[in-house]
């Protein structure tokens, strides 16, 4: 950042964290020599970030061991349950396959909804026969009436 360039606050943050490459850092340093606003900003950034604490967590050997044992047993359990699921799935698939293979072959085509089944056609033929019988009976009756005059 040249002295006459506008201030870039993001660069100040990156400069604080030592994240600017050589040329960028040099330009900013040059800018800082002439810009009191950026000098103050950088000072404040440093002050504020120094006041932000970094919490530290320390685990004892016993805590580490107990955590590792817990994770390890959990991993084995999950692995077993996954194996169980796979075994169950394979067994179910094998059973379905066996049922399909051993089932007697039925080549009838399933009916689409609204279409009559074969049984319906048979029933229809029987009904027609019944109607024919009724007609025959009617004819016999007519013949008898003719004979009576």
């Amino acid at each position: 950042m040249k002295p006459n360039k506008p201030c870039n606050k993001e660069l100040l943050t990156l400069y604080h964290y030592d994240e600017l490459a050589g040329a960028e850092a040099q330009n900013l340093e040059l800018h800082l020599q002439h810009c009191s606003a950026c000098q103050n900003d950088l000072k404040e950034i440093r002050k504020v970030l120094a006041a932000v604490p970094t919490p530290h967590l320390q685990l004892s050997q016993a805590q580490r061991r107990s955590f590792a044992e817990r994770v390890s047993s959990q991993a084995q359990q999950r692995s077993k349950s996954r194996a169980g699921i796979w075994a169950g799935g394979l067994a179910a698939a094998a059973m379905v396959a066996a049922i399909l293979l051993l089932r007697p072959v039925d080549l009838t085509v399933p009916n689409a909804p609204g279409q009559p089944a074969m049984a319906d056609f048979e029933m229809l033929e029987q009904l027609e026969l019944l109607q024919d019988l009724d007609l025959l009976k009617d004819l016999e009756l007519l013949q008898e009436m003719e004979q009576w005059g």
Partner: protein
Amino acid sequence: MKGSLVMTMDDSCSLPVQSVTEDILLDQARSGHEQAFAQLVAMHSEKIIALAWRLVGQREIAEEIAQEAFLRLYRSLPGFRGESRIGTWLYRTVSRLAIDHLRREKLRRKFFFSRSENSEQPDPLDLVADDRASPQEQLLAREAGRRMQQVLEKLPARQKTVFVLRHMEGMPIREIAATLELKEGTVKAHLHRAVTQFRKEFGETAEANYETE
């Protein structure tokens, strides 16, 4: 399987040795050696739980997140080709799990207008206070820890993660970008916004501390 290298979990590994040890343990764990996996977990547990704890602020949840990361590592062992070190892989997984958790938590609070379940528990950031410090210093450290937690809670999940990784873990921006699968420019912007937020909230405290020094 390489020569058996099962150590007791009390063995501490110095850094140069750790990488070799890790490779051998990884090989053994891949071959189904459960103790080798437990050893790997023990080696990385402190750093991984600490990272999760800094990100989510609650020890119990941090352990759950760390546990999930190790379980994912266990599941990935057969395909783990060692292109990245286990530590890097775990850092990435924990960061992502923590971001997911923080987002879910934020949504939950938004919908149910509730405070965190553990908000009544003692703040883990009390650990910031050094036992050897004077009571007044301990008080100030606790107060700083609480305020830091308040500011962190206000930050969006990704911004918070970037800040924790850079400020507390000391991870370079390039690595953060790789870990979170973000562009370096995006990471820089997140970091700057987080710092700006801290300047807003911490400005007065820092000023007061500065004056008393």
